[in-house]
């Protein structure tokens, strides 16, 4: 099956969901979410049968022009799967979050319009899948815009909630600005090299007379991609938007959107970081500066936070810092060392597991304790010990405690940075990890050591959330001990 069927199927699924929303009654829309989840699961299954033109060079579809701006390799498969799995979990999270959605969109008791909240992530997912296959800057731009425009709606979805609207406006303005940077940067690169194809770039840049124009273009594109992944100084939107957006959207932004940004960054940078590239040194220096700034800002600014959702926003900046550090220590990888691309991919996979798990718990705290502050976790160890245990594991994994998946990700990054002698990055990375230890454990402390508020009730999880939290918690432990399955997917 040609790989581009996957995107086509995903878009079709989104359209079906929109129709389902339009022609269904307003009492309950949960089944639309169920349909979306089932459809996404089916696409995930099909992912294993998708092939690129190399597998069947004789087939008629292998000769289509689509392959000039669309590629399918191991990395594309991995990140397509990543986008699909993220979207699947986000849809599941939205199903249990629908009471809040209904409260802030229409009058209570009616779920009118909330079905769109299951359809929009599916469209964004199609965009992320395309980003994973980007081979041409123009194509990459279109895919990125599909994702970004969908997110404008998703962030501002709670139209009767001021916080959500404010977040939506902020995201719209800054997002539009970053789009401008992206197009402008692509234009400069095209002007300097005469091509927009990433495959043709290595040859084109070898003959560039003066790299100044090219570097200017690269810097502009990196501003736009830095906005996507949350790199300092393009991180300013993250705390407010994450805090204001509906929790499933925040989860989607922090995992799906970030991963899509990173795969695009990898695709975009690969030609410029090749051994023969004349701008390799400058690009690496730029990456190192971004990584150090992001590590420091994300971790230090997270320390004083009291709102857990905002804390996760800063933590997502912090994790972006570690990922950028792995890119700054660009290494192809050998028998003794995981390459940068694989290290980033592995890190993102573990980040998906831990972060989505934390968002599932946060969603229920938001609904049942009516708050998102760290205080609202007080006494969780008494109110629901198993959930508190799971949350402890997830937070410990985010902090990077050994034998959890989060540790291995950081471990690979540090190995790379040590190997490349990025001592500043290594030093800041360890300071950052220590700070992370502090702020994640602050929540663990609240759960176990602080007494619950006097009127706190026991916390009961709905079945979908319960299953997802269990799966993600166990996964974050299993992959901490046995990471081989994730790495096997990358081969």
């Amino acid at each position, binding site marked *: 099956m040609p790989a581009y069927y996957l995107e086509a199927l995903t878009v079709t699924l989104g359209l079906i969901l929109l129709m389902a929303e339009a022609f269904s009654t307003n009492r309950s829309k949960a089944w639309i979410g169920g349909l979306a989840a089932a459809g996404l699961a089916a696409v995930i299954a099909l992912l294993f049968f998708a092939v690129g033109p190399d597998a069947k060079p004789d087939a008629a579809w292998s000769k289509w022009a689509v392959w000039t701006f669309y590629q399918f390799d191991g990395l594309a498969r991995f990140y397509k799967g990543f986008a699909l799995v993220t979207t699947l979990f986000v849809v599941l999270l939205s199903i249990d979050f629908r009471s809040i959605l209904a409260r802030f969109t229409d009058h209570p008791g009616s779920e009118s319009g909330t079905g769109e909240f299951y359809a929009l992530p599916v469209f964004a997912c199609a965009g992320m899948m395309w980003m994973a296959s980007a081979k041409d800057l123009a194509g990459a731009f279109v895919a990125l815009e599909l994702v970004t425009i969908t997110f404008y709606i998703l962030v501002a979805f709670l139209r009767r909630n001021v916080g959500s609207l404010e977040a939506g406006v902020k995201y719209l303005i800054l997002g539009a600005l970053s789009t401008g940077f992206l197009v402008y940067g692509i234009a400069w690169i095209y002007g300097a090299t005469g091509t927009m194809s990433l495959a043709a770039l290595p040859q084109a840049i070898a003959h560039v007379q003066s790299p100044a124009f090219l570097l200017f273009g690269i810097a502009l594109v990196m501003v736009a991609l830095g906005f996507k992944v949350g790199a300092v100084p393009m991180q300013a939107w993250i705390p407010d938007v994450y805090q204001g957006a509906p929790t499933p959207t925040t989860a989607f932004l922090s995992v799906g959107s970030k991963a899509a940004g990173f795969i695009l960054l990898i695709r975009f940078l690969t030609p410029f970081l090749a051994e023969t590239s004349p701008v390799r040194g400058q690009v690496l220096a730029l990456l190192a500066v971004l990584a150090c700034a992001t590590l420091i800002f994300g971790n230090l600014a997270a320390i004083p936070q009291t709102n857990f959702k905002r804390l996760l926003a800063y933590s997502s900046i912090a994790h972006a810092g570690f990922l950028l550090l792995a890119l700054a220590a660009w290494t192809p990888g050998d*028998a003794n060392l995981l390459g940068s691309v694989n290290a980033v991919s592995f890190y993102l996979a573990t980040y998906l597991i831990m972060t989505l798990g934390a968002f599932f718990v946060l969603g229920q705290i938001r609904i049942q304790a009516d708050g998102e502050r760290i205080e609202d976790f007080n006494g969780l160890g008494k109110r629901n010990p198993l959930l508190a245990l799971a949350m402890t594991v997830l937070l410990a994994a985010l902090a990077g405690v050994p034998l959890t998946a989060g540790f291995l990700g950081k*471990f690979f990054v540090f190995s790379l940075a040590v190997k490349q002698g990025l001592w500043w990055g290594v030093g800041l990375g360890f300071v950052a*990890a220590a700070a992370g230890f502090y702020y994640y454990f602050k929540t663990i402390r609240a759960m176990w*050591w602080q007494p619950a508020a006097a009127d706190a009730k026991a916390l009961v999880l709905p079945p979908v959330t319960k299953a997802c939290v269990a799966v993600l918690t166990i996964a974050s432990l299993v992959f901490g001990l046995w990471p*081989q399955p994730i*790495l096997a997917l990358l081969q």
Partner: protein
Amino acid sequence: MLALLVFLPVLAFLAILCGAPARLTAIAASVVNLALGIAAAAAPKAACWAFSVPVLATPKLNLAFGLIDGMSVILILLSVIVTLAAVLSGKAPEGREKLWYGSSLLISAGAIGAFAATDLFFFYAFHELALIPTFLMIGILGRGDRRDAAWKITIYLGFGSIVLLAGLVWLASVTGTFDLVKMLADKTAIDPAAQKGIAALLLVGFGTLVSLFPFHSWAAPAYASAPAPVAMLHSGVLKKFGLYGLLRLAIPLLPDGMQVWLTPLLVLLLGNILWVGLVTVSQKRLDLLLGNSSVMHMGYIFLAIAALAAVPGGNTIALPAAVILMFAHGISIALQFSLADNIEKSTGSLDFADLGGLAKATPALAFLFGIGAMASIGLPGLANFSGEVMVFLSAFKNYDPSAGLGPVQIACILALWGVVISAVYMLRAYRNVFQGPAVAATESAADLSFADRLPALLLVIALFAVGLYPNLLLSLLK
């Protein structure tokens, strides 16, 4: 088989989580582990102990256990003995049995895993596994200022672990392998500049975990507020991980690096022995006194490490000295924390002002605590004596009278005063608690029941066995 030793407590923890009777399961697992540990000490050369499962292709990581040398065997033996004593000691608060026994088992699994691991990655990882339940137990079930104490130990040990991780990643990067056995066998010549950096990170990282002065201030409050089994397991077993790490990695692999930091290390260890020793003398509560004394005694083991570092490849007595003292201190401090918990249970206080004359009402408790106190001072016949004597001797190994006293010898002479200091505070504590006229709290105190005596007896037997016949352990180190 070593994998069984490590995973049996984890399996028991899972069983408890699923509803098995907590105390019984924990005791059963610990007894089986004790038997396995003794078997490992009896036949350390047997091939059945090694275990290896590949977990990652690049970089090559194996979940591997093995008995690298006698030091691993002795520390595993220490772990299983103290674990059994810890699950037998103390009483879980109503309704918290799962947490109480489950945490003890996890701490034990982490410690055994760290001592048995032959892969650098899991060596580090298992120790961290043990820290999390330690933090939680102190924070949830501790006494007194438990939240502050727990937060302090979390921050300090978290910091120490991260510095340590930096050193270990660096070490793995210069040796090109995570396999400890391979690393030690190859003895890769490491560039002296890198050695200097790695040794500094390892000394600070491991040092924080072992409460090396001035990174020690977490220890006493944490032990004072920790529930008895956690105090026993952490001070007795888990803390030895840092010393084990220095002896296993820093001494053989980083001779030049350790040489560079020798003088600073000597100054810091004197801080442990003299400064913390004097702090201990001024304590007004038994639990804080024991916590501080355990910090102080780490100084002697650091002295042995310094003696090893000072004479690269030549100090044959310092390694056995350090290992025996680690074992002896682990057993004796566990004994003291276990009995201190009994004192608090029967009198309701550990404040010297509220205690006195307890020996009349509780002769057995007084006798057993006396043995623990004497061991801690270093009375001949008890295990600590052989360790301390060997440490002092090791400092003068290769001593050349014509060249005058070197820094290690001067440190040793100053450290000898530590013996006096510990005699002062231990005997004072004993007098304050057990002798003199009985006061209201101690008049009607109940003596140890048979169940309470069991853990103490187990530890006392170990103290006498090694004290009277140190060859039990020394033969393992040959």
